[in-house]
């Protein structure tokens, strides 16, 4: 239930930038929640900074619903400031070195959950192996947010507005999560269940993102329509593509912020496979992608418009990805 409630919350935060709602946080400050002359906005909590995943997991198990893991904090802290989230304990994962960095493990690229968007952008390994990640990170929020915002937070939070989840569906990624009873691996395509509702259980920490290395010469694109810098997508599409003899050999498509969860547009990809990406086939695929969307009507536009924009983003992403194949 708490998670369901959180959805409305995020919407209000999103609306804040448009409607000038930030007065909400001022009300809290004026309501006298001040101590020692220092204004404080979030509700009081205890702060923990474990040094290892094991320690973090033990803490979270002990705290149960009263504990929240803190990654970059750029979703959670704004919610806490608005008193829309008030965990009694924050377990900061920033002190855990094993959660940082990008490495190769066999056929997988493995990204630590606490790797920041900025670190993804400057990673030569990712730029070389999975340029789709860099292209996406560059379109998330703004520089200051990217210095702190993490890939783990982005994929684990379950916010349908986040960009990385659809990209992970597109890439066929999986997540390693660790809980009190040990470690398990969850496919990104099975992770998202609803807005802020994921396969992550209370007390579990998402530790690493595993991405099968894409084929050499693949094409990629993340096309995102947003009203302004820092905004969530009105609609966005991620495409990975390989071509052989002028025809699509493999294709995978992810869609952002046009449903309660990120979407993996399987049917659209199936339609495109084997085609030469001609106009007629692209139209068919776009229609198949639009049909699975169910966006909300909100400040970013009416639902119908956002569905159409998902189609437009997909068509652009296909064209862009195609132009990058074979390199």
């Amino acid at each position: 239930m708490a998670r369901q409630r959180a959805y409305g919350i995020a919407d209000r935060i999103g609306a804040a930038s448009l409607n000038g709602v930030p007065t909400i946080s001022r009300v809290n400050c004026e309501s006298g929640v001040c101590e020692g002359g220092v204004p404080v906005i979030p509700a009081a909590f205890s702060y923990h900074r474990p040094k290892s995943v094991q320690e973090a997991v033990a803490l979270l198990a002990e705290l149960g619903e009263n504990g929240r893991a803190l990654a970059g904090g750029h979703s959670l802290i704004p919610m806490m400031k608005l008193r829309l989230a008030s965990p009694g304990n924050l377990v900061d994962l920033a002190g855990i070195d094993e959660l940082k960095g990008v490495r190769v493990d066999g056929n997988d690229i493995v990204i630590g959950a606490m790797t920041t968007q900025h670190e993804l952008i400057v990673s030569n390994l990712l730029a070389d192996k999975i340029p789709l990640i860099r292209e996406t990170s560059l379109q998330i929020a703004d520089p200051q947010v990217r210095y702190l915002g993490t890939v783990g937070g982005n994929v684990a939070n379950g916010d349908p507005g986040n960009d990385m989840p659809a990209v992970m569906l597109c890439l066929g990624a999986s997540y390693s999560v660790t809980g009190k009873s040990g470690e398990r691996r969850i496919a990104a395509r099975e992770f998202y269940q609803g807005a802020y509702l994921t396969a992550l259980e209370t007390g579990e920490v998402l530790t690493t993102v595993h991405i099968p290395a894409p084929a050499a010469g693949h094409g990629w694109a993340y096309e995102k329509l947003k009203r302004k810098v820092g905004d969530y997508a009105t609609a966005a599409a991620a495409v990975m593509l390989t071509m052989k003899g002028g025809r699509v050999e493999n294709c995978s498509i992810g869609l952002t912020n046009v449903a309660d969860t990120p979407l993996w547009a399987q049917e659209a990809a199936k339609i495109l496979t084997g085609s030469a990406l001609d106009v007629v086939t692209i139209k068919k695929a776009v229609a198949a992608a639009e049909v699975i969307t169910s966006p909300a009507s909100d400040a970013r536009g009416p639902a119908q418009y956002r569905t159409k924009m998902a189609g437009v983003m997909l068509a652009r992403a296909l064209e862009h990805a195609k132009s990058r194949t074979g390199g």
Partner: protein
Amino acid sequence: MARSQIELKVNGKSVEALVEPRTLLIHFLREQLNLTGPHIGCETSHCGACTVDLDGKSVKSCTIFAVQADGADIRTIEGIANADGTLHAIQEGFREMHGLQCGFCTPGMITRAYRLLQENKNPSEEEIRFGIAGNLCRCTGYQNIVKAIQFAAAKLNGVPFQEAAE
């Protein structure tokens, strides 16, 4: 709620303090350290007026708790000027190019530009605009802010500043 002991470096000086975990870094800087250069604009992670440099990153100090900055090395606008008290090239740029009107966003703009120029010594206009996208100027004085940063880049690189034709 128990207070936490934090130790950090602010503008080159070591600081030890007791903070409530819920104290945001911006409030700690302004209210406990009396560093009122970083401004509180929107309080919602949008405007960038509260930007400070933390361990080589530009961060919005309204969206991080002081306790998270334990052990960090922070630079605020108060620590940007040269050691001899003369203006930093970026500050000089803002003065020379009229990079401020009301001045409210200026501390955040300058601290952000400081990190941007550390990472990219000779940014194009497009790179500057992309790099300061997390800082809002409600006077909409972006044109001259961009020029101010170009001026600073030129000065730091020891080359004459040439204003682009409009």
